[in-house]
């Protein structure tokens, strides 16, 4: 009788989750191609990976991405949540609009931002129009800037959801504490910093981890907007994985080894969050 209820899920997950997962661990130790086949080669993939400069460069870029986007999104979405946490007339419309990027398909957003970041795109036109710059900023055609330009897209899209989650947490914050602090003569900034924010610390950590895991998997932005270029300046871990294991590469074994390394990073992010959460609860 329970079989009727759990049978379908076991079939689907068995086929498309557990099998590939186990297979990833197996393939990582073979020289399989994406057409199949392959034989056991021990740790060769991992040795090769350890010496693969291109891979570690991609890892470095992905971590740079993390180092910028996570703090920015956390700070920005917390500020935005505090900003729209108001009953001012019309603010509900603002909230709906502000969260809307959350539901827009990332791939389409990326296509849109190609035009926005062009040398004669929206941002350059605005900056030129305001006479802030004389020459267009080469957002996408400079190895130094391209990765940061992609981060802008990630931040634009990512803030919506983080703000939504943070706002929900703010609405559960106790008002008594706030009022007590207010009676003690604490100003708004002071109250926000020492009364409100500590109460949503758990959520802030959660947002940070969610963003971290999402950014570790960043793919659509570089794939669509820069194709990993100029040169390899925007090649991320998943883009590298994609090239080795899917298009046009056919190194399923090697790609599986990359996948496992990626998995380790994700687990590390989850572990960090777990320890932070425990700390914040004690």
């Amino acid at each position, binding site marked *: 009788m329970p079989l009727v209820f759990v049978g379908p899920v076991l079939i689907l997950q068995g086929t498309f989750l557990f099998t590939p997962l186990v297979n990833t661990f197996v393939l990582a130790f073979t020289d399989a191609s994406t057409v199949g086949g392959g034989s056991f080669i021990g740790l060769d993939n991992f040795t090769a990976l350890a010496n693969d400069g291109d891979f570690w460069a991609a890892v470095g870029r992905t971590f740079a991405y993390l180092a910028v986007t996570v703090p920015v999104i956390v700070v920005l979405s917390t500020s935005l949540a505090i900003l729209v946490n108001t009953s001012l007339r019309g603010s509900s419309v603002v909230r709906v609009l502000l969260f809307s990027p959350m539901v827009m398909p990332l791939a389409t957003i990326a296509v849109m931002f190609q035009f926005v970041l062009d040398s004669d795109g929206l941002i350059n036109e605005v900056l030129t129009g305001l006479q802030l710059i004389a020459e267009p900023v080469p957002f*996408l055609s400079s*190895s130094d800037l391209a990765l940061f330009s992609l981060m802008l897209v990630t931040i634009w899209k990512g803030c919506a959801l983080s703000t939504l989650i943070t706002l929900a947490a703010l609405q559960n914050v106790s008002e008594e504490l706030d009022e007590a602090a207010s009676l003690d003569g604490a100003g708004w900034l002071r109250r926000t910093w020492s009364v409100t924010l500590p109460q949503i610390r758990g959520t802030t950590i959660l947002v940070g981890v969610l963003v971290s895991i999402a950014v570790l998997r960043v793919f659509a932005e570089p794939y669509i907007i820069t194709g990993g270029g100029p040169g390899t300046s925007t090649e991320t871990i998943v883009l590298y994985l994609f090239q080795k294991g899917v298009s046009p590469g056919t190194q399923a074994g090697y790609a599986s080894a990359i996948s496992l390394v990626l998995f380790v990073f994700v687990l590390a992010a989850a572990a960090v969050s777990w320890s932070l959460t425990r700390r914040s609860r004690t």
Partner: protein
Amino acid sequence: MVRRTVISGPLAVASALALAGCGLSDGSAPSGEQVDTSGEVTGTITFQTLQLSPTFDDYIEGVIADFEQQYPGTTVTWNDIPSDSAARKTNADAVANSLPDVMDLDTATLAPLARKDLVVDMNTAAADVKDDFVDTAWQSLTFGQASAALPWYLNTPILMKNSELLSEAGLAGEPDPAGYAELVEVSAKIAAATGKAGFQPTEIGLPCYLLSLGVPLVNDDGTKAVVNTPEAVAFIESLAELHRSGGIPADTVSAQQRGEIETFQEGKTAYLETGGSRLKIIEENAPAVYQQITLGKPLGVADEGTWLVTHGIAVPKASENLPTAVAFAKFLTSSANQLALAKQSSVFPSTTAALDDAFFQAKPTDLVTEARSIAADSLTDGTTIVRPASADAEFAAALWSAVQPAILGEVPAERALAEAERKLTTILEAR
């Protein structure tokens, strides 16, 4: 750098040029044992085309009906596949030994089959009709000693010029640049005089520019990349110089979404080397620029060579009905049938007789007919570059990606090319 392929659908034929770049040939294909293709023409064969349906349904079905009428007892089963999946499907079919009896393939997809000696050598199987074809087309399908396919339809570029921009730069009446080196010089002048760009280099074009400058791209047996030569360094350095001065568009290396056609029709570049079929698109999108266009011969047609995109009709050695397959291949590529196809599309036939037809040789009355006759002339009299088979789309993408920082002036050209050579060799070795 991730390569994204080009739009599909009926446009594919017209876009062949955007895709493929120069023709190709491989110095070292095995010339395997000959197969006997003589025998009675009867029975059933399968015929596969690349993305001709539904636009050319009537044409293909008509050719098949004529063939079946001429050879009673034959049946031709036609199927059409998207060109995007051609490489994948052909590869899988070759492994499974289930290749169609007659295949329409572009040179890049044909190359691996030729390398593995899986297709009939047309030098012997079609010796009787070999002389009907334009030599350049035949050459572009020749791998080593063997000819892997009968030439079918072709495309070759013409040079479009924005005359207003040229006269603004004081270049009105000057002869066209003869090759890429001259194009670079002229672009610098245009940038200095007008602030606009001369041309937009592209991922697909780069291997061709380098070939025409004498860079071999790969070694003789296609196992190692050879792109770090003084000529290549000088050319990339000149591109970097142009990027700084504005002689090529600022977004050149990030122009994933703004192709060279787009910048030309926005009036931002003076020269565009592309297929004549693009004229219609430019006329629609930028009527003002269209008024300014004058046409010229493709770059390098006189000496180092121009590009050619060839579709060939190949027959696998493993076909169970070789006589009928070869007969159909000859029938399809005959002058009369090719001319009929060319008249209802923007491609060119590969036989001399068809190219001599009034359709191509008539006095030009507008840009489209002028483009047609320029291209036809360059097919019959010009020289074409033969691109090594291993220098395919993946090769082009990796090369382009590696030289981007050099074009931006961020790293020395030589270092970028050395890096390109290393990466490309890795790709070649993995094959």
